[in-house]
């Protein structure tokens, strides 16, 4: 039953390409379309679904129902929003940079969709099969900083510029821990190719062993998250990913209570919708990459391949929503301090721990390395984290608050 769906899809793809055998030029076009079109549609749909998921989830967390008017369980709500967005008038501030004001959402959407292309959806199912997929992912990821800046700058509004600058600063400072925590995984699995990373998270020997139980667990136990540096790396990666996608605790730039809507103030109508879509899709992309790097990509016990990938991706997205429901927003300086003074050193330390784990595994075999790794590795990271947090502790008022009546 493994990867059944993936193979079926690949066959379908080959069949359609086969249709145009006698028109080579068209065939190339079809081949390209095949790689990109389904992906865009799927993820547009995913965007719609995720907006619904988010609003229902947040509602439930806050003990309320969430949209249930439109469609059965409010399922058509995203459609309604979409139409509303389309109908809304698209205001452009008069003295703004018309060109860049229009270009910003596009610039944001393009890297989002490209990034999605690099996700290893299933066994062999990759839109842009590149040798160094992860690397390209991060390269493209750094593009949307420019888009945010463009948005902030072109709307000729002090608040949006300020919001833009803040967002750019946040994205830049969180890009480094993001990449560094990924480096640990890449170092361990030995290649930048997404498929190989996923493969490295499956215990090949168990899979080939034949007995069902071993096969069942073989898919799971190999995941990097079960390793000490993997778990720590996942936490750093996920936190940096939240910041990179401007999600929940780090959504300072377009936080409503802060600078109106940050760099999105001057956008309305469809451009605003595109911004949101780009943001959600880059969130999905990062969730996808997180699953490939840490949660074993498409490998899963029974229905290995695409289904598992989707489940994991959506569960990570659900966690994002969950975090959005609970955590308060971070102040700007805390935000920056957290990236540079907490995440970065720990990510670097994590790489060292991963290195030691790798050699420990060579030396004493995977089981001993696993146990020892968890005890020592995680201990080191834990103490480093405590030490760093004590170092960065802002001078809070530690004594009991003393109130005085004014004489």
């Amino acid at each position: 039953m493994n990867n059944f769906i993936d193979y079926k899809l690949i066959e379908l793809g080959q069949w359609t390409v086969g249709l145009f055998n006698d028109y080579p030029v068209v065939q190339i076009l079809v081949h390209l379309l095949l790689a990109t079109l389904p992906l865009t549609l799927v993820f547009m749909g995913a965007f719609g679904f995720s907006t619904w998921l988010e609003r229902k989830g947040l509602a439930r967390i806050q003990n309320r129902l969430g949209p249930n008017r439109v469609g059965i369980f409010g399922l058509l709500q995203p459609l309604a929003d979409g139409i509303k967005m389309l109908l809304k008038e698209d205001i452009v501030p008069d003295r703004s940079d018309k060109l860049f004001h229009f270009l910003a959402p596009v610039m944001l959407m393009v890297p989002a969709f490209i990034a999605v292309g690099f996700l290893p959806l299933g066994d062999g199912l990759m839109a842009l099969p590149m040798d160094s997929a992860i690397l390209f992912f991060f390269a493209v990821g750094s593009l949307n900083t420019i888009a945010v800046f463009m948005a902030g700058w072109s709307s000729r509004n002090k608040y949006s510029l300020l919001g833009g600058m803040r967002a750019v600063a946040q994205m830049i400072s969180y890009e480094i821990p993001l990449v560094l925590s990924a480096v640990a995984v890449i170092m361990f699995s030995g290649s930048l190719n997404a498929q190989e990373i996923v493969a490295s998270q499956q215990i090949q020997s168990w899979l080939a062993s034949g007995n069902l139980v071993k096969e069942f667990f073989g898919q799971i136990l190999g995941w990097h998250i079960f390793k000490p540096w993997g778990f720590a790396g996942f936490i750093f990666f996920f936190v940096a990913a939240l910041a990179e996608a401007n999600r929940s605790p780090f959504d300072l730039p377009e936080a409503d209570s802060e600078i109106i809507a940050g760099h999105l103030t001057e956008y309305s109508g469809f451009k605003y919708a595109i911004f949101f879509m780009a943001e959600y899709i880059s969130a999905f992309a990062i969730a996808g990459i997180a699953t490939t790097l840490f949660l074993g990509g498409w490998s899963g016990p029974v229905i290995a391949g695409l289904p598992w990938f989707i489940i994991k991706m959506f569960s990570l997205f659900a966690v994002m929503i969950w975090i959005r429901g609970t955590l308060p927003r971070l102040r700007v300086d805390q935000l920056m301090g957290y990236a540079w003074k907490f995440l970065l050193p720990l990510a670097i330390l994590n790489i060292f721990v991963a290195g030691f784990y790798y050699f420990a595994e060579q030396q004493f075999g995977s089981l001993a390395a696993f146990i020892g790794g968890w005890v020592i590795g995680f201990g080191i990271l834990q103490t480093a984290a405590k030490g760093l947090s004590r170092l960065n502790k802002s001078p809070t008022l530690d004594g009991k608050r003393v109130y005085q009546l004014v004489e």
Partner: protein
Amino acid sequence: MSLIAKGILQGMAVTAKNFIQSYYKKERLPTVEYPEEKSTVNQFTRNIPFLVYDGEDEIEGMRCTACKLCEKACPPQCIYIIKDTDENDKPIKRPKVFDIDSSVCMSCQLCVEVCPFESIRMDSEFELSNENRFEGLLINRDELLKSNEYYHEIHPIEAQETDDRIAAKIAEAETKKKAREEKARLAAEAKQAAAAMKAAEEAAAETETSATEQAQQSEAKAEAPEDNPETKNT
């Protein structure tokens, strides 16, 4: 905060609990889908006032005697009363027109406190919106009149208190009347005894006439309070 960030996890646990329980626990999902379900309004809510009437017939059982106290007391002057007149236009104790402009009324409940006849009370009805902004929001007498049972229905405690108060008033009036009769009687007897004595000495005859006059006056007085026990207030 350490790696596992205990604080954040606790927070997440709380939201998770909310999320899950909202599916099966009642108090976790208190939303009332308004247009379909109506949530009972708290009995102490007050909105625009209404007039109470006893018994079945509205006009007859109306407690309001158009004394216009509430009209004068209302701060935004949103009450407008015209006294009713019977067939040969002699004013009777009942309002012919009793209008409240609900857009002006600020539900300050001063009219309730001023009304001596417990006839005006605050209603908890809030669905007063309608299309016509001016005439629509002016509520006339017939719309204001609501039965005492309705009153009991929306404000049970308050309604019960007002009824008790009225009953007590009536009872008090009874007792006072009785006491007065008692006193009168006693006084008459005492007078008679005295008179008898005096009369015995003086000419019994001429004093009889004066004694009988006195008995008539006391009866007249006794009759007066009888005819309006209900409208008298403390």
